[in-house]
């Protein structure tokens, strides 16, 4: 890469800080306040460390930390390039809010095994930032697999038969994806002898034949496609909604699934490279998959009565916006994709937080039971409304910004039909989200007498994320600059 690399401990510390909190969390299992303090301290420290990497990333100074050879020829190496910083910023920033929210949620429900919950949450965040900063495929796989395993105890947290079977499904999908990714990495290693992510791809010097490139790409796609919930590899995600809501919010709307699409971006433009994809029309394959997922995901969301499952299908659909933006292989499109990676996170996490607040407060989880909730939980439902409007792409929320970039990139790359898909999807978003808003504010509910707003531990984070969605819509500056940096590194100024 042309950008200068500066050795720095920061990426390593950013990864490790939440891991270091794990023993502290475990040791203070009998003192909940102390335990939660560790979580919050780790979250704040992590965000601070990532923030410290931001100026460098914006100016093109990339912090690198190499440890040792993890397999012959490949080092365990962290590298905070603009793309990595963008993802790490989203994940670590939202972890702070999720931690606050988790405290309210777990106490509100008097959840069992809270120590295990907070400990694995911290491991997940280490793995996520590790994924963001991974400098090569092996390092990426290391953290990717750790994330898979660390999420499992959170998915099965309730320990009901339903949770256990969702956990099995989750493992079946993600572990299968893991082995495909390993096979793909091993194959690439034999072809190139080097697995460092490079803008434009690692195969540039080789004239790969179609019978190598196509199966190799399919292996990679299988590897990262599961966590990105590209259809038909998506069905673990709705099942995983059995997890506690903060888990669904941060992991299944932000960290895990975004790790999947982040991996897809890495594979598409940092391993394969646009030229190779275009030569074998693999970009079209991706586009078809993404469009199918966007539309079918939205349609399936319409049919869900369970609020979290509806949101899960919505996530499936929105993740493919990012896939689509990546597959278009142009500067503006990748900017749109990365903006959506960040912005979808704030909007979707808001909606999940709201779903959790309703569940804790009213023990309701179905859309059909939400009549009148807006009157007793005004803050929650106002935040829900903002998040919903954002997902539909209404200005000035941040969802509009990313969709605008995606749509104009689609038109710019001579595929105006895809912009039509985005508009159609926006309408479908409205169709499955706005009725919830309408029910909660404009219909009379029953059994709500004497109920009040949820605890401030939960309301404050969800209001903050909603406001964040609005603020980022008005001032998308930092994320836009990061995305522009990434695009410039890939496709030139």
């Amino acid at each position, binding site marked *: 890469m042309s950008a200068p690399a500066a050795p720095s401990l920061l990426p390593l510390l950013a990864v490790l800080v939440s891991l270091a909190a794990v023993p502290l969390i475990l040791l203070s299992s009998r003192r909940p306040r102390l335990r939660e303090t560790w979580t919050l301290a780790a979250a704040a420290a992590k965000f601070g460390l990532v923030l410290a990497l931001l100026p460098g990333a914006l100016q093109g100074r990339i912090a690198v930390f190499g440890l*040792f*050879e*993890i*397999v*012959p*020829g490949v080092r365990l190496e962290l590298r905070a390039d603009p793309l990595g910083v963008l993802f790490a910023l989203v994940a670590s920033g939202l972890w702070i809010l999720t931690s606050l929210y988790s405290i309210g949620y777990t106490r509100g429900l008097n959840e069992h095994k809270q120590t295990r919950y907070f400990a694995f949450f911290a491991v997940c965040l280490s793995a996520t930032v590790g994924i963001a900063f991974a400098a090569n495929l092996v390092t990426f*796989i*290391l953290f990717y*697999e*750790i994330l*898979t*395993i660390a999420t499992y*105890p959170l998915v*099965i947290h309730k*320990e009901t038969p339903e949770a*256990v079977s969702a*956990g*099995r499904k989750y*493992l*079946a999908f993600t*572990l*299968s994806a*893991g*082995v*495909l990714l*390993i*096979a793909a990495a*091993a*194959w690439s*290693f*034999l072809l190139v*002898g*080097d697995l460092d992510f490079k803008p434009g791809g690692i195969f540039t010097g080789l004239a790969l034949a179609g019978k190598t490139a196509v199966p190799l790409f399919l292996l990679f796609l299988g590897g990262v496609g599961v966590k990105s919930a590209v259809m038909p590899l998506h069905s673990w995600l709705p099942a995983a909604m059995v997890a506690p809501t903060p888990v669904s919010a941060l992991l299944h709307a932000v960290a895990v699934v975004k790790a999947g699409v982040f991996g897809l971006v890495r594979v598409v433009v940092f391993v394969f490279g646009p030229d190779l994809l275009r030569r074998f029309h693999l970009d079209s394959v991706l586009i078809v998959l993404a469009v199918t997922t966007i539309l079918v995901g939205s349609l399936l969301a319409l049919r869900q009565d369970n609020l979290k499952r509806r949101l899960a299908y919505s996530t499936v659909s929105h993740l493919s916006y990012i896939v689509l933006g990546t597959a278009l292989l142009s500067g503006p499109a990748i900017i749109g994709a990365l903006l959506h990676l960040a912005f979808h996170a704030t909007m979707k996490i808001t909606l999940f937080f709201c779903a959790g607040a309703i569940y804790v407060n009213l023990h309701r989880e179905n859309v059909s039971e939400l009549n009148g909730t807006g009157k007793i939980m005004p803050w929650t439902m106002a935040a829900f409304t903002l998040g919903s409007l954002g997902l539909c792409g209404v200005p000035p929320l941040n969802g509009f910004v990313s969709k605008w970039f995606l749509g104009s990139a689609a038109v710019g790359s001579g595929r105006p039909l895809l912009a039509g898909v985005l508009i159609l999807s926006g309408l479908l978003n409205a169709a499955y989200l706005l009725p919830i808003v309408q029910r909660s504010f404009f219909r009379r509910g029953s059994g709500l007498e004497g109920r009040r707003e949820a605890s401030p531990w939960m309301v404050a984070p969800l209001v903050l994320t909603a406001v964040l969605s609005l603020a980022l819509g008005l001032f998308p500056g930092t994320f836009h600059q990061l995305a522009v940096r990434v695009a410039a590194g890939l496709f030139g100024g």
Partner: protein
Amino acid sequence: MIPTNAPALAPLIFLLAALIIPLAALRIRRLAYVLAMAAAAAAAAVSVGNIFRVLESGTVHYRFGGWPPPLGIEYVLDPLSAFITAVINLTALVVLVHARLTVAADLPERKHVPYYALVMLMMSGFNGIVLTGDFFNLYVFLEIASLSLYGLIAVGDRKSPVAAFRYLVIGMVGGGFYLLGVGFLYINSGSLNMADLKAILPAVGARPEIIVALCFMVLGFGIKMALFPLHGWLPDAYTYAPTATSSLMAPIGTKIGAYGLLRVLFFVFGVNFVTRTVPLAQVISWLAAAGILYGSIMAMAQDELKRMLAFSSIAQVGYIGLGIGLANPLGLLGAVLHVLNHGLMKACLFLVAGNFRMRLGHSRIRALDSGARRRMPWTSAAFTLAALSMIGLPPTVGFFSKWYLALGTIRNRSWIFLAVILASSLLNAVYFFRVIERLYLRPAMQDNEARETEGRSEVAPSMLLPTLVLALSLVVIGLLNVVIVKGLLVRFLPPGLEFAFP
């Protein structure tokens, strides 16, 4: 003095211990264990020292009685034998620390002395097999090891004599095949020395007798390493043997067969002979692949943890067989690294099974529940870590075995074998998560609830520590794999298969 006889030290230490233990323990029985530990520690120290010796000064030869090789018996310490002996002696040392209490629990006191003597004899045999440079001497040690092992299995629970008898019969057949093969070789070449044979065989050519000799030797080692479908003796032997025996033989025993296979195929006959002249390597890789699937599927159906681990061993030996059968440098590195990796994983898992037996009185999977885990949190954690390693998740050793083997299969363009290795990860996940789910998620059963009030009752430190050391080593050795592979293992690669990493 010491440097020249370094290759012979480890087998002799164990042999000496085997002779001294019955005498010394005539008066004081407890001495048996002390002496066994001392011998194991000494042998482990010697074999670790040998690694550095080999790295420093290359292959070391030792001639017994000073007789030059074709006539006399030669011991050879090369990177491969140094590595394997270090692995087996270190594993044995850790397992023996654990064994004191399980032996005391499993066997009546009068059997302790012969038991430890037999363990020493077996270890002497294993070390001899690996270090000798002479095919007939190898046979002698093979029989020493096997005969001691029959005894070590037979002292187990009620069904163990049958299992031991079965191993006796099948093992004898294996030894017989091997001896026949050696005989054929000797008649046609006039030599029993490996290095000598390597020089003679090309001149002899691919005579039918030579091919038959090779096939018989492979068959013999195939039985010893439980290469599918020659694994029939293994499940019962692992299941019914006492804890100490199964945790010694599972990580070490089958690897010795794999070592013999490697030696014969690539260091005596040579890669061209075993892949082109007689496509035995291909046959081995197909059998190994079948074994991987068979072992994994059978493991899913088991109720007894030790039996599940036994079938899992058949699958894991398949990894080694597959790496050998690929006959390329990456495959061989994967196979030899997996000797170490699987040794650590299986030792850890069998110690866990032993811990469960010690505290719960059983190791039946269906009877495990979260009550068992609450009583034994560390043992359960060790199990989980080892299980993750068996599945092949980074940064545990299992991932790295998979990495090298995957590289090996892709290099040969053997897509089916690649698929088998990957599928095996998932099958491992199925049968290990079956246990993990029970340990962590299944509510404690009624009869356990009474015990639950007792709270934590982990096994004694002398059992827990080895278990945890092995579990931790899965991560440490995993992260150190490059040091091992680049520093030591690439040096063992046989002629025609040299390799340098970029």
